[in-house]
């Protein structure tokens, strides 16, 4: 082999070795790109993305020092979000540059002794920059190096934008959760307040939450008054808690009737209540009030039958009048403060109250005006003109006579109810709630203190009932009706009464 051939061969070998090194370098860079997409692309923490990016470029290019800055052009602020290998003087120089606002690439590379500076966009007014010091090999950064660095920086930029979007989604989700929590609290407050606020006022507030129209206006309506005969005697016989439970049982039953006929309980005062019926059709609200009045009397008999042997039966006085009344807010000022009440006031209301007092227990007394509006739909007994307290002229009054169908209704109940106060565990799916019974029959039970809002009529739930005499009893029970604060359920198995 000639000397020239050997030289040529050696040259080719050197070229091949160089090509081999270059190939390996590029493969290493490709691997870095792959790792970056795998390790940075899925991160959702901006700080972690930038820290990983810095480590990758330091490892790829082999340098002891590197830094990533984020600049907010709108606020004029610069922050070193990641750094590696910067010593005390370099960190001081960086802090000085940041504080003085001298953060141009040239100034930074000079003050930190960096050899390359690659800016990259982040989001809107936010830009980033990555700077690296000289290579450990002492070689200069090549055009290929800068190209790879730019690709990596842009990859990080996309990852940061994704992470920012994710952070925003998380923040929105947290805000949404907080809003939902506030709504739940407001709903809870609303539900509890609704027990004390007339339905009419609730509707007015819902229609116009900022400024509900509570001004007094004249309106045609029917007013029903009902109170318990013998309430004072009952109170004297029992402790207050039992009296309250009893009133709850009766008034709970009355409420069913009142709401069924569209009445609005306006006032409750111990043993009595005032209900307003409104409708564009004056005959309609009078009819609704009459039906509710008869319903109250019927339910009284039912509850009396249930409680027979436990308590003395009670009787309700009910009076109904129809006509024009001033409906709206009434301000009651006292020395202790001011209270607003939403009610119907005027002669129509006064007469209704007097009619209730006029009747025998168990009867419904209506005015002539109400009678006129009812027409022939109801059987009535003419009680003639009656003098009512604080009413100038005698008023002709009538007693509503329950129809045969109405009179027969109490007999429909198959099993008598017993007043029982048993602890109960109600299961809704996997969750259980503690409550207590109000009353029970052979195949029925009424519960209170359970989350009625979570129950559905017609659906069955498991009950663990702790009975007085027979201990723990579990059964399936179907919801028949839900009233304010209590739920009636029918059990498949007979209850151990």
């Amino acid at each position, binding site marked *: 082999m000639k000397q020239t051939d050997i030289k040529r061969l050696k040259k080719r070998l050197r070229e091949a070795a160089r090509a081999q*090194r270059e190939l*390996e*370098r590029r493969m*290493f860079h490709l*691997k*870095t790109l792959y*790792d970056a997409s795998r*390790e940075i692309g899925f991160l959702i923490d901006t700080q972690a993305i930038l*820290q*990983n990016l*810095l*480590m*990758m*470029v*330091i*490892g*790829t*290019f*082999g*340098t*002891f020092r590197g830094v990533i800055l984020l600049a907010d052009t709108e606020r004029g602020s610069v922050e070193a979000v990641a750094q*590696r*290998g910067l010593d005390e003087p370099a960190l001081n120089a960086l802090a000085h540059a940041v504080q003085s606002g001298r953060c141009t690439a040239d100034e930074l590379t000079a003050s930190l002794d960096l050899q390359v500076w690659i800016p990259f966009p982040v989001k809107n007014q936010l830009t980033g920059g990555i700077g690296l010091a000289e*290579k*450990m*090999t*002492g070689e200069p950064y090549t055009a290929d190096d800068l190209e790879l660095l730019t690709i990596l920086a842009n990859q990080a930029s996309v990852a940061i934008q994704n992470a920012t979007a994710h952070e925003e989604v998380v923040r929105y989700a947290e805000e949404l959760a907080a809003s939902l929590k506030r709504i739940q609290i407001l709903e809870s407050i609303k539900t509890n307040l609704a027990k004390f606020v007339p339905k009419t006022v609730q509707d007015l507030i819902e229609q116009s939450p900022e400024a509900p129209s509570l001004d007094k206006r004249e309106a045609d309506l029917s007013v029903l008054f009902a109170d318990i005969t013998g309430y004072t005697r009952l109170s004297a016989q029992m402790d207050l808690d039992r009296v309250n439970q009893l009133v709850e049982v009766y008034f709970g039953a009355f409420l069913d009737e009142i709401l069924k006929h569209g009445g609005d309980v306006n006032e409750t005062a111990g043993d009595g209540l005032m209900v307003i019926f409104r409708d564009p059709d004056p005959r309609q609200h009078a009819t609704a009030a009459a039906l509710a009045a008869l319903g109250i009397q019927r339910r009284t008999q039912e509850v009396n039958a249930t409680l027979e042997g436990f308590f003395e039966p009670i009787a309700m006085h009910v009076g109904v009048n129809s006509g024009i009344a001033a409906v709206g807010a009434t301000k009651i000022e006292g020395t202790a403060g001011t209270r607003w009440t939403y009610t119907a006031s005027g002669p129509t209301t006064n007469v209704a109250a007097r009619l209730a007092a006029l009747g025998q227990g168990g009867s419904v007394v209506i005015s002539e005006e109400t009678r006129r509006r009812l027409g022939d739909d109801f059987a009535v007994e003419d009680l003639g003109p009656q003098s009512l307290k604080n009413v100038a002229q005698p008023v002709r009054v009538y007693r509503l006579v329950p129809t045969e169908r109405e009179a027969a209704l109490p007999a429909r109940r198959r099993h008598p109810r017993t007043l029982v106060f048993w602890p109960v565990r109600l299961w809704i799916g996997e969750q259980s709630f503690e409550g207590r019974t109000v009353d029970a029959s052979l195949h029925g039970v009424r519960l209170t203190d359970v989350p009625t809002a979570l129950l559905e009529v017609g659906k069955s739930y498991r009950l663990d009932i702790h009975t007085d005499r027979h201990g723990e009893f579990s059964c399936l029970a179907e919801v028949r009706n839900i009233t304010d604060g209590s739920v009636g359920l029918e059990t498949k198995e007979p209850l151990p009464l």
Partner: protein
Amino acid sequence: MAKDLEISIRPKADVSVIDVKGDVTAPTGQPIEDAYHKVTGAGAKKILFTFASDCYINSGGIAILIGVLSETRKKEQVVRMTGLSQHFQKIFAMVGITKYAQVFPSEDAALADF
């Protein structure tokens, strides 16, 4: 699938040997720094990193080692490496690590050179 990084330290005469097994990346590399600080705290002046044959080191992991070398320079510690595959030997040379930590074909060879 990524392999967990396992680090152990053992003394060999006046050399602190740090054994590295598993994947060395930026997020997992902290134990290497911890091991270095531990031996340095014990007064180590000669440190040998031995890499297991199945060790995988990516650019982030190389940055961890560069950070350690940066410290050893300041503290005038001598660092050697062994157990690296041909591939990683080339890469370490490419990024300049071998300028600051010589690579040996075996542990004995590395120990003999301190």
